[in-house]
């Protein structure tokens, strides 16, 4: 099957105050459509950087990033913004919801950026919230929701826009055990039912236990690409 995401020789070097830090070193990777892939590794291993480069949030120092048949690493800011808007959903460790918007408004935010009509936005956002079991909390602001509920809203925001890939950066890191497990199961269910490709950066063993493919990163390099039966 043609890979959905492909990276070749991906290198990222950060320069700060004259010091160089190499976050990724010539990473090669392919992810097929509909896969649920975890990127594992200790803190500082380059998981988030890899996710950012795949999602067009940053430019690599060297190497190539392809989405479908299109090379995206040379896109300018505006093309990358358009690419993210149409193809990627993001889930962040700190939820990153907009505090003055309700759960429904947050979930429909990307659809609004896409310029969808109000009725369609609301319908899709409500459906995404319902899929994640928080349909009845649509009118609450983030500060009226628990951490797990906020992260579900963040997943709903990513899911509602029907992206090709959802990139999740440590989505369970701020959640307690049960809540984290529930969220993992819900994301896997969405992956199965909607066929959305998930790439999740994590070092949460609970999540890693439930994922078929795990790419292990250490010191900016892929040290193991493991696929197993779940």
């Amino acid at each position, binding site marked *: 099957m043609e890979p959905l995401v492909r990276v070749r020789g991906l290198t990222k070097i950060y320069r700060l105050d004259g010091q160089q830090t190499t976050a990724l070193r010539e990473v090669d990777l392919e992810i097929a459509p509909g896969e649920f892939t975890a990127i594992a590794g200790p803190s500082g291993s380059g998981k988030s950087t890899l996710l950012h480069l795949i999602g067009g949030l940053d430019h690599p120092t060297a190497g190539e990033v392809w989405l479908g048949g299109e090379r995206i690493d040379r896109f300018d800011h505006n093309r990358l913004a*358009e690419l993210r808007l149409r193809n990627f959903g993001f889930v962040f460790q700190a939820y*990153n919801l907009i*505090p003055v918007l309700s759960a429904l408004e947050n979930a429909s935010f*990307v659809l609004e950026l896409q310029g969808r009509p109000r009725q369609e936005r609301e319908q899709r956002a409500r459906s995404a919230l319902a899929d994640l079991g928080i349909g009845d909390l649509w009118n609450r602001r983030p500060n009226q929701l628990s951490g797990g509920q906020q992260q579900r809203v963040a997943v709903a925001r990513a899911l509602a826009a029907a992206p090709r890939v959802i990139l999740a950066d440590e989505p369970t890191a701020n959640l307690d055990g049960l809540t984290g497990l529930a969220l993992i199961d819900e994301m896997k269910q969405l992956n199965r039912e909607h066929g959305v490709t998930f790439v999740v950066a994590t070092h949460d063993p609970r999540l890693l236990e439930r994922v078929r493919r795990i790419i292990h990163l250490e010191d900016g390099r892929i040290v193991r690409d493991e696929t197993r039966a779940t």
Partner: protein
Amino acid sequence: MLILAWRSIWRHRTRSIGAAFAVGFTVWMGLAYFGLTNAIRDGMYVNLTDTVGHAQIHVRGYRDIRDFREAVIADAAALRRRLDATFPGAQVAAALEVPTLLSGEDRARGVLLAGLDHPPALRDRFAAKYVREGRLPHPDDPDGIALGGALARTLQVKLGDTVYAYAPGTDGTGASAYTVVGILHFPDPTQDARSALLSLPAAQDLAAPGAVSRFELHVLEFRRTTDDAALVPLRARLQDALGRDVVVETWRETYPSLSNLERSLRPMLVFFIGLFFVLAGLLVVNTIYLSVIERTREFGVVIALGARAGLVMRMVLAESLLLCTAGAAAGLALGLATVARLARGYAYPGSWGDVVEAYGLPRVLYASIGSADIAIIVAFVIGIGVLAALWPARVAGKLEPVEAMRFVA
């Protein structure tokens, strides 16, 4: 996005209310300032046009004529008849101005002796405004004269004294004796030192029988500067009716320096109001900029989710415009209410009122505001809303999503 912008404004309530209040206060002050200045301008207008008329009729080329005999409208009665036929019911004043040597018992001065024939309403207003002692000469009084206060002091004469006039006339030099019946006070010292008033028939007897220097057309309904627009077609109509021997001029054409003075008020006013808006704009810049800095992480998320730089900049611009609009709406309502109240008439208290009167303005002034004034205020509000957002919007638009999401305020 407007909902997001509106809610974002009120995240830091105190700061936003402060900035909105500054805008609202400036709008209120701008409207009140316009209203009060328009009142003074209209007061000046009434004062000016009461004195010189809204339009004047002179002999054509009168400014360049040096010979007194050629500078007068010889058959004033005939022209008056045509004027009355063209503009029935017009308030018309006639004046004959004669350069004259006026002497008391011991001293003499060169003065501009004016024989005036004013309609009663204007005559009463003139008397109320300028007569300090005594009265004006009656319309048919052949012997009475009123003198500017400074001139009376110079000639060392008082009410009841006799003064002597020697003047070039259309029929040779005229000479006559008059009794001082009134002492006037003009705010302009030069006018006060050079003015002497007679009845029109008395002046004509002295210098030019049957002639006048000018007719003044007074349109009593015109009480505001904006009424002037109607003068231009009126002048054209009169000019056609009165023929080419005379020239009809609006007061602005006859007294361009006064007109320019009156017109210069508005640009100065707009400039000063603009300065106040700049100060209010600085508060808005501060509010919007701090709001952007505090929400760097949030803007990073918005950009990460796919918002282009242009959209992020428009979000900041919308916040600034909404903030300014909220303040401006309150300021506009208060400002219009203030002007509406002052439009019923107001007087400056105490010595301020004396100053106003000293400049020949009415004691009671009437504020007014035009749609152009409101449009200027609205333009200023939009202007500061946009300008105040430019820099913060640029900062927000240039954020890199990954760096911005790591930002800790």
